[in-house]
């Protein structure tokens, strides 16, 4: 099945473009220290608000920091934060969904009612509220996003677990004397995880957008961290005099989100129709 997805993806030009952009960004993030000309934190008040030039290809910001270096480092922050948020959402969502599906009964009812409530609530507002209570920092933002983001994954996983747990190999494992947690970890999750990984990729663009958006509002990364959303926020006071402060980080956000959306669309098309329906919401 995995091979088929890869073959399908190769046929999809947009998905290939998305993959290439993501690979370039990953390269930027990993080798940021070698690719940037200046220290992204280095303040140089003599060179503040310079327009793009040979020395500073993308200009400098209001504190004279090199914008290109800050954007390159920003790749690191944004992608790391988005990956971490996605991973945490996945871990929580999958674990809780698997427990609900496997044990059923009261446990299932209790968890699914919580899920229903969270799904009925505008998640962005809840995220902002939680992040606000915890205090503004990138880590707290990730925690807040995890607290609201796991529900969708739990629903999908629960459904798959309900069908897998009736299979005979699960009964055979119980007859062997395996404990419930062992069965969930060793037999259930490996059999239900692949659609979730795909969905997580598709959600990645959305996650990056949320992180930069909330950072723009001042809830996520704090200055002087070179994070795209926070850079947008920094630049907004100079929008008329030095528009490049907003244009370049804004372009980066757009490109990354587009790349992940291209890949996500490609993946969705390459998948079986059953999953396509699940994700139509």
């Amino acid at each position, binding site marked *: 099945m995995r091979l088929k997805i890869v073959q399908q993806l190769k046929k999809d030009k947009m998905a290939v473009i998305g993959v290439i952009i993501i690979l370039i960004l990953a390269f930027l993030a990993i080798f940021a220290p070698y690719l940037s000309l200046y220290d992204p934190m280095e303040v140089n008040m003599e060179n503040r608000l310079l327009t793009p030039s040979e020395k500073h290809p993308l200009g400098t910001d209001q504190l004279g920091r090199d914008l290109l270096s800050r954007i390159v480092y920003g790749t690191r922050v944004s992608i790391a934060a988005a990956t971490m948020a996605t991973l945490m959402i996945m871990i929580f969502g999958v674990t809780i969904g698997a427990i609900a599906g496997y044990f059923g009964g009261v446990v299932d009812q209790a968890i699914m009612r919580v899920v229903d409530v969270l799904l009925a609530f505008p998640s962005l507002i809840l995220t902002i509220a939680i992040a606000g209570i915890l205090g503004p920092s990138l880590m707290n933002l990730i925690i807040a996003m995890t607290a609201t983001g796991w529900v969708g994954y739990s629903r999908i996983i629960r459904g798959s677990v309900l069908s897998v747990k009736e*299979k*005979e*190999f699960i*009964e*055979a*494992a*119980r*007859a*062997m*004397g*395996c*404990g419930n947690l062992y069965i969930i970890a*060793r*037999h259930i999750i*490996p*059999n239900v995880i692949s659609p979730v990984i795909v969905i997580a990729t598709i959600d990645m663009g959305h996650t990056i957008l949320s992180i930069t958006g909330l950072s723009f509002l001042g809830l996520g990364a704090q200055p002087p961290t070179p994070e795209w959303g926070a850079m947008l926020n920094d630049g907004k006071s100079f929008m008329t005099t030095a528009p490049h402060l907003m244009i370049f980080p804004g372009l980066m956000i757009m490109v990354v989100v587009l790349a992940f959306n291209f890949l996500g669309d490609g993946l969705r098309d390459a998948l079986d129709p059953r999953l396509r329906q699940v994700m139509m919401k």
Partner: protein
Amino acid sequence: MIKVENLKKYFSTGMFSKKYVRAVDGLSFAIEKGETLGLVGESGCGKTTVGRLILRLIEPTEGKIFFKNTNILELNKKDLRKLRPKMQIIFQDPDSSLDPRMKIGESIAEPLKLYNIVSKNGREEKISELIEMVGLNPEHINRYPHELSGGQNQRAVIARILAINPKFIVADEPTSSLDVNVQAQMLFLLKKVREKFGLTCLFISHDLEVIKVMTDKIAVMYLGKLVEVGKTSDIFNGAVHPYTQALLSAIPVLDPEAKRKRIVLGGEIPNPINPPSGCSFHTRCPYRERICEIEEPMMIDIGDGHQVACHLNR
């Protein structure tokens, strides 16, 4: 070795008015050490439920199940898990009995790891030994279940079970989803390992010819109840209960000249939510009398362990 007393399992259905499906309704039988009991009956009579109840994979509504004098229904979780490896089950569908994400070798290694039966170094050797015993090739160790045939998967299931040296095995129609020629090989293999490991078996099947070659004793089940129990030879040579007689008459005979009286049962198996009054077989019984509709017949021993529940044999 295995003794079952008054085993009952009712499944509740219906959202507003509770109704119960009497899947297993008061079963009692015993299996001696090294013996194979065949459980026979139509589809839907509760055979599979009995197999799962005995291993306590599902909880019975009522009754006692003894394994070597311990009532396994009284065991707590911890003690039950200790006992689990002694009792194993072979399922009907071999393709879904193995984790599709695990290679055959990993599936066989799992019980070895779980119970630390052989040291880490000896594991591979033990796996190849098991693989060979069940008639698979060493190359199958690194294959996934979907790459093997049903018969090969069933062999892998048997290897996996034998890895933990069980004493008692429930075989739930282990051959019915296989091709006929593979069925014969599988039965041969089961016979071989049964002798080699001195296993006690509960062999569940609707195929009387398979039952005839595989079992020492037969228990015939109808609508959640036993109607006749006895030695395999006694039952094949002289079935007493009309239902058993009808089942036996349905076995195809090779000789077209042979005269045989085919007893064809009318109607369907009744709904276990509303089992018939009296003898549950009376709605289809060719010999029914008034008493059959009113009074439920008791199990009566008619000699040499041959028991039957029918009013006509008093």
